[in-house]
């Protein structure tokens, strides 16, 4: 009849794990997330193989403009398909949307027919085309050879001598970073909240009184956090590995396997650190209330930091991966769990930043354990009205 401290924690964690693995909601949500990720890679694959942004038709006199249009569109980062149509077909094709625009006229200047208005990217490409056409015509009038001039123009370029080698952000890594961010965010939201809900469930059903007669409050809290954390880890691991494998096999992801594995490992390290940090806080905040309906309100203050980090990450990083603001925020412990994994997946994070931000989170965890252990001990048996944070901290 002996139960060590670890034995007690293991028992509690075990119960959390079996309860959650048996729960339908958990199995379904995991399956849905995995399916969504696979669906996403398939969709990306389909879009990527098509790869044209606009289709432009041209009538016979404009045939010479088709190739230069594609070139100038390419220079602007656009894929334009072209196809020859007769005058008669042109209007109909534009009307039914199978063509975005049709080049008409005699080919001496750029003239297009569109349904309503011209897409701005396509307008830019056509403007470049018009400029070039005008230039060619002027060169020809002046007696020059437009082809020669074009070749000379094409070979002229700026010679850049960078003092520092800038980080090139690969678009795949950007997507990977965003997916890492979404996964961490969802995991923290779902699993962190279920820690708070679990605490309140024990409080509402009063079973906590029976439990605390046999084990210490911190053992109960630690067991709960570790149990739910382990299940969450299993979930995120399954999603991440299935996602990476799906992306590599469909060819959507062309980065090396080792880089992909690195992303998954960082994701897991940050999930663990972030989950530990936040779930401990959630457990303490959950202990303050007695009804499931109040859990949301109690954990909101902590949740705001998770959401803020995530929102900043997904809104700033795609357009500006090297953002100084994100760089600073990602080192601050409360934002690090959501921002750092995104940056790490995108690459180009100095080693010292990765170490400092992880170190700060790990250093903060014991402080939080001490603080919320105190709140938990004082508040978990007090049912009824919400316990004030100050009271929970000050009571012996």
């Amino acid at each position, binding site marked *: *009849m002996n*139960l060590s401290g670890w034995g007690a924690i293991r028992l509690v964690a075990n119960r959390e794990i079996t*309860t959650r693995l048996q729960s339908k909601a958990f199995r379904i949500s995991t399956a849905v997330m995995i399916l969504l990720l696979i669906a996403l890679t398939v969709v990306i694959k389909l879009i990527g193989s098509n790869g044209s942004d606009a289709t432009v038709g041209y009538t016979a006199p404009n045939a010479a403009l088709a190739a230069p249009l594609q070139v100038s569109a390419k220079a602007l980062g656009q894929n334009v398909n072209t196809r020859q149509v007769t005058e008669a077909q042109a209007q109909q094709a534009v009307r039914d949307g199978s063509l975005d625009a049709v080049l008409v006229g005699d080919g001496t200047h750029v003239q297009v027919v569109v349904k309503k208005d011209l897409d701005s990217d396509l307008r830019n490409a056509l403007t470049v085309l018009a400029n070039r056409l005008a230039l060619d015509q002027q060169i020809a009038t002046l007696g020059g050879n437009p082809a020669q001039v074009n070749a000379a123009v094409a070979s002229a370029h700026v010679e850049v001598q960078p003092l520092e080698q800038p980080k090139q952000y690969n678009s795949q890594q950007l997507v990977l970073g965003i997916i890492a961010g979404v996964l961490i965010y969802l995991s923290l939201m779902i699993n962190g909240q279920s820690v708070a809900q679990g605490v309140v*469930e024990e409080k509402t*059903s009063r079973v906590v*009184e*029976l439990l605390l*007669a*046999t084990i*210490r409050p911190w053992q109960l809290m630690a067991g709960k956090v570790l149990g739910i954390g382990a299940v969450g880890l299993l979930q995120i691991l399954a999603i991440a590995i299935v996602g990476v494998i799906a992306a590599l096999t469909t060819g959507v992801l062309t980065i090396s396997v080792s880089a992909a594995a690195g992303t998954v490992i960082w994701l897991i390290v940050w999930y663990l650190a972030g989950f530990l940090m936040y779930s401990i806080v959630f457990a303490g905040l959950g202990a303050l209330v007695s009804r499931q309906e109040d859990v949301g309100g109690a954990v909101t203050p902590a949740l705001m930091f998770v959401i803020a980090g995530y929102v900043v990450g997904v809104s700033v990083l795609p357009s500006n991966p090297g953002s100084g603001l994100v760089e600073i925020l990602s080192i601050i412990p409360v934002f690090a769990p959501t921002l750092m994994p995104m940056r790490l997946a995108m690459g180009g994070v100095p080693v010292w930043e990765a170490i400092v931000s992880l170190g700060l989170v790990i250093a903060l965890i014991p402080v939080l354990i001490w603080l919320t252990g105190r709140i938990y001990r004082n508040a978990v048996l007090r049912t009824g009205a919400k316990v004030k944070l100050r009271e929970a901290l000050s009571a012996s």
Partner: protein
Amino acid sequence: MSDRRLEIEGLSKRYGETVALREMTFDVRAGELFGFVGSNGAGKTTTMRIVLGVLSADAGTVRWDGEPVTLETRRLIGYMPEERGLYPKMKVGEQLTYLAQLHGMGAAAARRATEEWTERLGVAPRRDDEVQKLSLGNQQRVQLAAALVHDPRILVLDEPFSGLDPVAVDVMSEVLREKASHGVPVVFSSHQLDLVQRLCDRVGIVRSGHMEACGTVDELRTGGADRLVVDAPQAPSGWTESVPGVKLLGRHGTRTELELLDGTDDQAVLKAALATGPVHEFARRRPSLTELFRSVVTEGARR
């Protein structure tokens, strides 16, 4: 000293200005059923929570077998909290096994004990059901099983009889007696005083966080003033007024109930009664626990 006695000594507890317990002292001997009675808010639950270590006392100690109670000793206690508590969404069997393990039992022994107690308490067919799907009465039985499943050496039960049907009350009483006969000190609180009187070896009456009276039911009953019941059909109302040292408690039909003050001769009362006509009944009556309880509580309120 190895008498496996549960001793509660000088427990005090305040919540801010409110005094919950003041110098609460009593003991429960091994093999004894101890009834803990008192009005709502008298401090019964607080005392039990302190014994279980769920609350901490401001002063005082709880000892078992001569040693202060530690977390290890507390695992030997079977506890039934006043606010019933089980995981609503956990299956009965898994829940009991889990609780037995938390009390330090091995997994196999915990499963065996779960089977044994669910059968004994008549909830074996519900072992694979979630607790929330059980009727309130069956939930109570599971709650009792939770207190017994780890083969406790001490039993502390807060209102174990509330909400039970008569059959369940009998099962519960039998189990408690059996546990006591194995040398387990059993303390339980209850508002069903007739039950306490019938079941308990000793009773403690609490008022305002203090033990006001403690002893066997007989001791407590003889401690109070003597009462007489006189059935004299022809006696006029107010016939006792002429008898010295007598207090009229009430008259129900032809029966008059009296309290004898110290040193009053009951034969003088009989003579006075016979003077009014025939006397069909003349009996000394000892107060029931309910009456004792009332007098302790109201006495205190008057003070």
